[in-house]
């Protein structure tokens, strides 16, 4: 000990890191990914690899050669964005469209704002919504679930549950097959069971708290249940809403994105309530069959104001 290190307390660190948190999210997505591979086979594999690789690559290129700063690809956040983007796409989407989506997600959604921690909107959703508006036809043709399918671009397509509800055409699958994921949709939309397994893991690892997912899901449930109670012939059952579309993926993985969600439990509840209401309004009264992405992006925009006006519960607050 020639020279001692002098620094202020605390002198120990818990060992948590950005990488550990991102790895936890990737692991939590694994069950849903496996279900996706099962139902969509080759297509699922291609879009996942394309999306993840291009997101990581774009982050590297933009930081290394355009901004000339240290790259942050090793923290795993670009991989998470890539995987979440893939989870949101039809599994028969051409590679070039995915690459454009990845560029928008990482380039416009994240790096322009100063990288991880500074982006106001969820990068994966920025990418997805950009593609949805730019390529509406390709982004709304959904392959039918075919176990271990070897089809990619030529996969047979069908309508999603939400578009069946919207157009009142076709037959709805049973609630159980909805829950397990046997339906058309993106990889991340189909299996609520696998996504809930991911939620359980994230809660146990304390990567996220329950406030956002539970407030979104319960708001959607209560709102759609009320609609269904008063006009059951017009409005679908709340269970159908719970287990279809991007609600689970959005509530568990997209809305809980650290960077773009509020900074304390009370704020999170308000944010989750907002997302729930907007989602149902778009689904039931809007033009689009699905509204989770828009609802999350809109509430992302409200996050700074929520943080300013809604403060955490202070110690000794309830005492006069």
């Amino acid at each position, binding site marked *: 000990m020639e020279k001692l*290190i002098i620094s202020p307390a*605390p*002198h120990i660190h818990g060992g948590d890191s950005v990488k550990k948190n991102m790895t936890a999210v990737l692991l939590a997505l694994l069950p849903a990914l496996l279900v996706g591979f099962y139902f969509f086979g080759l297509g699922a594999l291609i879009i996942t690899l394309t999306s993840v690789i291009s997101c990581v690559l774009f982050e590297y290129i933009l930081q290394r050669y355009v901004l000339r700063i240290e790259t942050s690809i090793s923290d795993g956040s670009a991989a998470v964005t890539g995987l979440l983007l893939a989870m949101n796409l039809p599994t028969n989407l051409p590679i070039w469209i995915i690459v454009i989506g990845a560029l928008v997600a990482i380039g416009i959604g994240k790096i322009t704002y100063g990288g991880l921690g500074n982006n106001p909107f969820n990068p994966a959703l920025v990418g997805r919504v950009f593609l949805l508006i730019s390529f509406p036809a390709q982004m709304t043709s959904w392959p039918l679930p075919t176990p271990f399918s070897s089809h990619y671009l030529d996969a047979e397509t069908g309508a999603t549950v939400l578009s069946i509800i919207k157009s009142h055409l076709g037959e709805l699958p049973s609630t159980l097959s909805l829950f397990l994921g046997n339906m058309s949709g993106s990889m991340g939309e189909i299996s609520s069971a696998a996504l809930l397994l991911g939620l359980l893991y994230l809660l146990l690892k304390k990567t996220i708290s329950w406030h956002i997912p539970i407030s979104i899901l319960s708001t959607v449930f209560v709102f759609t249940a009320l609609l269904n109670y008063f006009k059951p012939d017009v409005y679908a059952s709340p269970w159908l809403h719970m287990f279809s579309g991007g609600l689970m993926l959005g509530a568990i993985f997209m809305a809980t994105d650290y960077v773009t969600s509020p900074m304390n439990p009370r704020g999170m509840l308000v944010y989750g309530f907002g997302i729930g209401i907007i989602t149902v309004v778009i689904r039931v009264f809007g033009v689009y069959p699905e509204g989770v992405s828009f609802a999350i992006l809109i509430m992302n925009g409200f996050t700074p104001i929520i943080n300013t006006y809604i403060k*955490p519960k202070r110690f000794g607050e309830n005492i006069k």
Partner: protein
Amino acid sequence: MKTFKMGGIHPSENKLSAGRPIQLANIPKQVVIPLSHYIGNPSEAVVKKGDFVKVGQLIGKANGFISANVHASVSGKVNKIDVQLDASGYKRLAVFIDVEGDEWLETIDRTPTIISECLLSREEILKKIQDAGIVGLGGATFPAHVKLSPPPGKKAEILIINAVECESYLTCDHQLMLEKGEEILIGVSILMRVLDVKQAAIGIENNKKDAIAHLSKLAEKHTGIRIEALKVQYPQGGEKQLIDAIIQRQVPSGRIPIEVGAVVQNVGTTFAVYEAVQKNKPMIERVLTITGKEASNPGNYLVRLGIYLASVVEQAGGVPANTGKIVGGGPMMGRSLMNLNVPMAKGSAGILFIKAEESLRKPIQNCIRCTKCVRVCPMGLEPFLLMNQSERNMWPEMEKNRVMDCIECGSCSYTCPSNRPLLDYIRFGKTTVGSIIRNRK
């Protein structure tokens, strides 16, 4: 099991020196006794160069109410009164004594007999505590008699003894409870008498099951004293957290414990009160834990005040080769020391050797707004926000966001996945905002 309700963390306990009997530290040729401890006015020297002093003799007289007497911890000749760098990193006036023999004041009862009866009045006890120079041994070293004299109109309902020892590594309070349990309980009843309260609770974390069992058994003979086993969670030893854990009352922002009817004293302080009141022994020594993952002989030592830490460390096997940082106190709130040539003080609870590879902080990354700092803050603050505001000198905003409530426990920095120095910036802001508030008056 009871605990505080907001925030908190649970670092690895690493109580390496648990169960090691308290050993007497050797007395070197010279001791250096600082005339001031961390809180309160420095005391005034009442001895001069060449004077012969006995163990227990007053050498520094308290200056004002929030100040404490200082006594000679050894016998010998006063060599000089000069400045000395202390463990907090400040130069302070200290009395240098060249040790000659070990001659104690005759008034001090040095026999091991336990005296349980105390018939003194409240004022007499308080005077003894004040005369003995007792300060809080939990770390803040606030003079004990101040806390025991509630402001007019306020009345304590319960005495809470802080035996939590929530910092990792430290075991001095734990060992003291195992070896001096009866004396501690007598100390508690004396404090109850001073405060005129009917009940006292000793809060002990559940990782010290032997101490809980030992004191619970002894407490059967004392009326009104109960032992509260608490769930292990840092910073339970924080005064406001401990009160919340034990009586479920939260002391409001900017207020003191007496306003919810509680007075908190550290368990080591309680033992010192026993010694002062029953044995006429002023505060001249305390238990110190010497520890670290690579320490050859982690242990607990009874050290006279003013002994250079280097001397005790040498007795305990020296500084391990692979040491990058030496901390005075626990790993969460202790101060890193520049060297061991600093004197043992009333607030010294531990010396912790941190391995070289664990001494350096990891590189700072962007805040990812994960809210983990908000989740662990035991005061319900927003550390990420306070750090940002501190970086930008936004003092009024920091005050509005309650920076003065921060207890500097370090849970935020400990937990941050981006290795951000949250507490460093918050502490800086707290100091600045504190002086702005004082200047306003």
